[in-house]
């Protein structure tokens, strides 16, 4: 089907004999905001890892912007326009925020192979780094080491690295996890401000903030898609209450 940013058909993944993903079919249109929910162990992050390429599926197909990618290594998927964040914060803790963003920018630049030019040399690169840090409100700490940031700030740097890639499809794995109420509002606003042409698939448990951002919802349980549809359809479905909302 054309017009899909992400199309997953018949995806299956077994860890040993344990099925983590069972016959998953998901279609996400260009510019859509999809929320992925489900109880712990439902296979949400495993699904993300298969879309990003960190885990190879046992069977089925994953298409990014119409291209079959299920056997493509992760770095080539990034070059197609895919970016992701991690549920467990995965930053370059010993490096400055500036260097963190520089590594994200370099990922898609040819100059990443340059062995002679100092990495901090370019004024244009520096300006772009500060612009991205400013997007997440961290421009003032550009010279600080990422490991010394407060937890909420690290969450925002996670998102900054993915935004630096100027993705066409962004996978956010629990971007609000562990944040205070005020931080959830500010990070929620940050996600809401992502341009509409970027397709976003988000795993999130904080329904209050996440629902506002979502056009559509997919509910996973035991590695299977239980309910899939617009926000209103999924929330109204009795199976959603039974499996997830629990009341």
């Amino acid at each position, binding site marked *: 089907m054309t017009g899909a940013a992400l199309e997953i058909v018949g995806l299956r993944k077994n860890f040993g004999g344990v099925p983590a993903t069972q016959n998953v079919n998901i279609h996400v249109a260009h510019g859509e905001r999809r929320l992925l929910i489900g109880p712990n162990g439902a296979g949400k992050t495993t699904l993300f890892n298969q879309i990003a390429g960190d885990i190879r599926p046992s069977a089925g197909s994953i298409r990014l912007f119409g291209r079959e990618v299920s056997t493509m290594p992760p770095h080539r998927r990034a070059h197609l326009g895919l970016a992701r964040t991690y549920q467990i914060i995965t930053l370059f*803790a010993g490096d400055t925020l500036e260097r963190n963003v520089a590594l994200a920018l370099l990922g898609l630049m040819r100059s990443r192979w340059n*062995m002679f030019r100092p990495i901090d040399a370019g004024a244009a690169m520096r300006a772009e780094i500060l612009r991205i840090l400013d997007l997440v409100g961290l421009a003032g700490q550009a010279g600080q080491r990422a490991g010394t940031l407060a937890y909420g700030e690290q969450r925002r740097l996670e998102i900054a690295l993915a935004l630096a890639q100027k993705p066409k499809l962004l996978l956010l794995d629990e971007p609000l996890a562990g944040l205070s109420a005020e931080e959830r509002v500010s990070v929620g606003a940050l996600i809401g401000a992502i341009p509409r042409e970027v397709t976003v698939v988000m795993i999130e448990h904080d329904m209050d903030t996440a629902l506002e951002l979502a056009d559509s919802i997919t509910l996973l349980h035991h590695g299977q898609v239980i309910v899939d549809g617009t926000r209103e359809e999924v929330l109204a479905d009795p199976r959603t209450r039974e499996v997830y909302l629990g009341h």
Partner: protein
Amino acid sequence: MKWIPTALVLAAAALLPLLGGDFYVNLASQILVAVLMAASLNLLVGYAGLTSLGQAAFLGVAAYTCAWTGVKLGVSPVVAAGLACLMTLAVSALFGAIALRASGLGFLMITLAMSQVVWGLAYRLVAISNGDNGISGIVRPSPLGLSLDSPGAFYWFTLLVVVLALWFIAILVRSSFGATLAGTRDQPQRMAALGHNVWLIRFAAFMISGFLAGIAGLLFVWYNKYIHPSALSMTASAEALLAVIAGGSGTLAGPVVGAAVVVLLKNYASAYVERWNMMLGFVFLLIVLFLPEGIVPGVKRLLGRGR
């Protein structure tokens, strides 16, 4: 870069043949070769986070190629050096392709195993290597018609080559490539998600590291005018690794200091103490206990605390 200390050390190193006798000049040449070995290994251990126990294999491949083509096939020293570089690159590519299937302990064991294969071949491939007799009669090159036969001339030549190599490494680790290499050490999964080809970055670093060790091999075989399989034993690889760790891995000055300490201890301790290996071990025990991050970062830390 700390220009003043670097310039002072360079000036002292350049003046050494005018001040010291042949014994000290030759000792300094040995130190320089060990410095280049350690610095090449440090690219893998310190910057790529890949601990190798097989670096002497590249020194050996270059040294034996140079000795075999020079002495047995009779090509000129410059052609022999060129062939040695090509051979080292080919072997680095092969070893890198195999060893980089793993990382961590697996990588260490594979590099150890492959270097032991090269060591075994040096003993057994008698037609090329003369086995346990080694190859002697290697002729030093005479760049631009200048003879390198005197200890002083050879030392200056070695100093020039090693300084150029260290300068290249200093530029490399500050470059975009150097930053991505350190990134693959710290967060390989994230680097891949950001679009970096982690395997290819590591492979490039492995090739550069092997090539620089090959240059050290050329200097080694020209210095000794002789090559024996013991030069590529596991002990030789372990000494290079010891120099990196003792000096401070992931720093530019660390391998320089570490290699100097290892060579000096070996030479002086063996002159006075029969069980000098034990003394070597004792010194490194002290380093690990009091300066676990290595001499260079450790001394920096102690000085910083004093202020």
